[in-house]
């Protein structure tokens, strides 16, 4: 549910406040029909979000697939990102108007699609056995497995400028206190903003809370389950620490001067150029970095958001999204769609993915390796993956994520709301979500 809001909704709705619910957007050739074309070939529509990199990858994959399967044509369609895209996918699925194959998040967003009713079960497919178990869990229900991974896993962590660290003789922090000490040293040096925050894109404000989840689980391995059962709260230790860290860094004046208006793209650029030293963000920032500042590929590294205990220091990991087949795809199209998904799970597909857009972390398919020359943001992560010091982010362990977190973290990070109040507000928000989901015990 870490949905990336597309450039703060330039697409804001013009009409009204609304009971609306969308149906399709952007582009759709429509699904429907299971038949082959007149010449015996089958055309599949493949729906992806409209990010440039996503579309480029999808088209490259479609081309490679079509070269091998002359009878199947794959047409890429696009949809908006963020909450807009979520509503679109739900409406299309619920009205039977979905494309033949579509890409979408895994985890709690996937669960909200009522997969058992709307998607084709793929647990009999050969490739399922080659997938990382963590990933399989995030695209499964009790009754089936529904998706093949698209892209790589990634971390919610701190990207930092290695040159600044080297210059000031700092080492990668493994505890929160070290992190603050480093930030203070950077502040005293005066050249760079110690911590970059970019509330021009509100979703980026959530990292202090969401990226801290490894540390929450380190203290209480059952926290996610308790949370789902209404037994653990953000207002209490250990989860409140994410909010407290945010408040502490704001109060200490460690942010960049323009934190309130800067955007995600600004943030990545600042770390790349040394205007900023550290930036808690998702590691898909590698793609932005390689587009805007490719010269800094080896300058920008990554480390986990540290907690209290150096021994449990580890990465909070997000699983890649999946590619799914809706139940409205039938007959020849269904067979063709399964062939396409099979192709997506091959090392060849991984290579194309790594080639067309910068990788953000490791693949979750057996036999898929990253190329040698990945940016440091990606290669730095390997250490924690190798030592198995990783934990999944909360959204892959619980279906509940309150929708207002990004506004709350902006308020806390801007000094409008205290950490305690923010955490309490978020608990209310979570409660609302749980009630809407109709969960037991709320």
């Amino acid at each position, binding site marked *: 549910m870490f949905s990336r809001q597309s450039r703060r909704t330039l*697409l804001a709705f*013009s*009409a*009204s406040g609304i009971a609306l619910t969308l*149906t399709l*957007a952007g*582009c759709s050739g429509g699904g429907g029909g299971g038949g082959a074309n007149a010449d015996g070939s089958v055309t599949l529509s493949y729906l992806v979000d409209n990010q*440039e990199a996503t579309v480029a990858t999808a088209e490259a994959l479609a081309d490679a697939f079509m070269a091998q399967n002359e009878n199947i044509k794959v047409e890429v369609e696009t949809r908006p990102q963020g909450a807009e895209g979520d509503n679109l996918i739900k409406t299309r699925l619920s009205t039977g108007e979905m494309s033949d194959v579509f890409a979408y998040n895994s985890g709690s967003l996937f669960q909200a699609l009522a997969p058992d009713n709307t998607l084709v079960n793929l647990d009999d497919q050969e490739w399922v056995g080659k997938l990382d178990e963590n990933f399989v869990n995030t695209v499964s229900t009790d009754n089936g497995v529904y998706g093949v991974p698209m892209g790589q896993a990634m971390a919610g962590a701190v990207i930092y400028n290695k040159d600044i660290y080297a210059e000031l003789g700092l080492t990668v922090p493994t505890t929160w206190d070290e992190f603050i000490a480093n930030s203070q040293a950077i502040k005293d040096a005066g050249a760079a903003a110690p911590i970059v925050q970019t509330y021009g894109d509100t979703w980026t404000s959530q990292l202090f809370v969401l990226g801290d989840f490894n540390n929450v689980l380190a203290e209480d391995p059952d926290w996610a389950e308790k949370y789902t059962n209404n037994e653990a709260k953000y207002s209490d230790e250990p989860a409140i620490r994410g909010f407290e860290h945010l408040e502490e860094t704001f109060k200490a004046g460690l942010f960049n001067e323009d934190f309130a208006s800067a955007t*995600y793209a600004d943030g990545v650029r600042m770390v790349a150029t040394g205007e900023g030293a550290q930036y808690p963000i998702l590691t898909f920032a590698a793609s932005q970095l390689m587009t805007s500042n490719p010269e800094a590929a080896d300058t920008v590294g990554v480390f986990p958001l540290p907690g209290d205990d150096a021994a449990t220091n580890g990465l909070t990991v997000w699983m890649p999204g999946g590619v799914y087949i809706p139940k409205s795809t039938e007959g020849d199209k269904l067979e063709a769609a399964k062939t396409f998904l099979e192709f997506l799970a091959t090392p060849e597909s991984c290579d194309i993915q790594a080639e067309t857009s910068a990788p953000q972390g490791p693949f979750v398919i057996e036999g898929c390796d990253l190329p040698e020359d990945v940016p440091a943001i990606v290669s730095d992560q390997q250490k924690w993956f190798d030592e198995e010091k990783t934990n999944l982010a909360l959204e892959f362990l619980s279906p509940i994520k309150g929708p207002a977190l990004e506004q709350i973290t902006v308020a806390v990070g801007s000094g409008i709301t205290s950490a305690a109040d923010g955490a309490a507000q978020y608990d209310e928000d979570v409660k609302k979500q749980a009630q809407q989901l109709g969960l037991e015990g709320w």
Partner: protein
Amino acid sequence: MRNTLWRWGGGTVAIVLSIVVFIVPFVFIFLTASKTQQEASLLEFTLPTQWAFFENLVAVVQTRDYVLLRAFVNSTILTVAAVAIMVVLSAMVGYVLQRRRSRWNPLVNGLVLAGLIIPPAVVPTIWVLQGLELFKTLPGLIAVHVAFGVPFCVLLFRAFVSTIPKELDEAAIIDGAGSVRLFFRVVFPLLKSVIVTVIVVQAVFVFNDFTYALYFLPGDENATVQLTTYNFQAQSVSSLNLLFMDILLITVPPLIMYIFFNRQIVAGMTAGSVKG
């Protein structure tokens, strides 16, 4: 003397003010649309160091197989049809509503207000359209715009019918005009200035509408112009120059339409020859 001062002095001050307040933002859009991608991302109010106006223009027009051109055709048909229907039907309602006192009036007034206040319920509307087999068709979207636009137009027409002397109706009736003829031959032409207003306002609304097109007319072949802005809003790599070029291009048709109708308004005014 005083009039000359007013005429020139007031006018000059107004021109300067209007340039600062209203023109500068448009110049900004134009300049950004003329820049290269890197330069546009700096968001500065400067002349482009390297003019890329035509490159951007070509890039925008060619995006996704010339979808913009198809969108222009669709939007034009949609706007003309929806506004024409809306204007005639609403004028009929506004006219009777103002002229005739019947027990239906409170109901109609209430419905007009409700139509202005209540946001449209999209999913049920889709169901209705599906039932009528109008979903995903241009006529369907036209009908939706008419339904949602009528209350606004009725409100305007009702207000302005009152400025037409009732005596004219009576004269026409004595001449033997039936109600249909009375309305279309006598009253409707007299509503010219408000009709122009309604046309301009609703045409701009329909043409600039994003939401209804997104919901009720999905599909690339059916795209309307506002939906084309999607193509330039990739998040991680923003192409602000292309986005602004797109905004510039899709603002041109309403502009032309307005300049055209502006004459009509001016014409209506000289007939009235109001002195300030």
